[in-house]
């Protein structure tokens, strides 16, 4: 848990430092769409923080940073939940001999 916290702080620092240097030019696909006039239809869903702007915060840096932190935390929590679900369902399959053998051989190699 402590490692996760330290890593999260490191990722937030990564964003704090690098967001000002991020290029605002269109990315490869956007550039192709702009240059060759790809037919754009109305999107069905515009998210709640489109273009990584945190609601109505005026300062662009703060706004992008907050949106980034929100996204990092959302991914982190979802990732932990998925791993936990995988861990719990994994135990149930442990009894099958074939997988048990596989596990055993894995434990040997991990150590």
């Amino acid at each position: 848990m402590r490692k996760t916290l330290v890593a999260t702080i490191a990722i937030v620092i990564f964003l704090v430092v690098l967001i000002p240097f991020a290029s605002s030019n269109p990315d490869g696909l956007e550039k192709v769409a702009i240059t060759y006039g790809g037919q754009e239809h109305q999107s069905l869903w515009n998210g709640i923080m489109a273009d990584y702007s945190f609601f109505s915060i005026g300062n662009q840096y703060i706004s992008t940073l907050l949106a980034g932190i929100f996204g990092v935390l959302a991914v982190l929590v979802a990732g932990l939940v998925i791993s936990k679900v995988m861990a719990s369902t994994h135990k149930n399959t442990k009894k099958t001999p074939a997988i048990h053998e596989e596990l055993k051989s894995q434990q040997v190699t991990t150590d």
Partner: protein
Amino acid sequence: MHISDGLILNNTSIVLAVIMWILSISILAWSWKKAQQTYTRSITALLAISSAFVFAAQMINFPIAFGTSGHLVGGTFLAVLLGPYAAILSMTLVLGMQALFFADGGIVAFGMNMFNMAIIGGLSYFLIKALTRKNSDQKWFMSSVFIASWISVMLGAVITSFEIAPAFSGGLAVTLPSMLLLHGLIGVGEGAITTVLVTSIQRLNPTIIGGLSLLKGRTDKI
């Protein structure tokens, strides 16, 4: 390389989008099963942390030529770190949050984006594995990581070109060459960043790496 719904809401692309949804979800289910079988405790926090990092890294666009930028996709990075199956889950998670909250990549286009970035990225693991089968020294391993990163971006760009072609009056003749040109450059960034990340993780925490997928596979075959 995130396809927005705006670009694919035409009759041809919608059909393709539905097919890609079905295909990608099937592959996701398969990955889940495989990841579960090869699950090790050491992956628990790592999956969450590396996904969160890739999300953050994708926000930092680097400039390439022609007033265009690119950003790390991170599929190959995750594949090296987590193995192919968990990497597909991890990248799907990142793309899901981007589509849901930030409208970065569409909802209808989600199956396409999953295939182009999560699945191709995760499967690039097997390319590195194939390349390093005979020669496993560190330099060649890193070169293989670079090559696999570049190819994963290019392959994603090729498939994207087909998927978005109906939105352009010039069709594939316009989308394919321009996507390849720009992503040929973006892929170099992808390769460089991925190699630096893998090298630093190897140096910083060889024990974490030691228990994991590809880097582990180099010393004792999985």
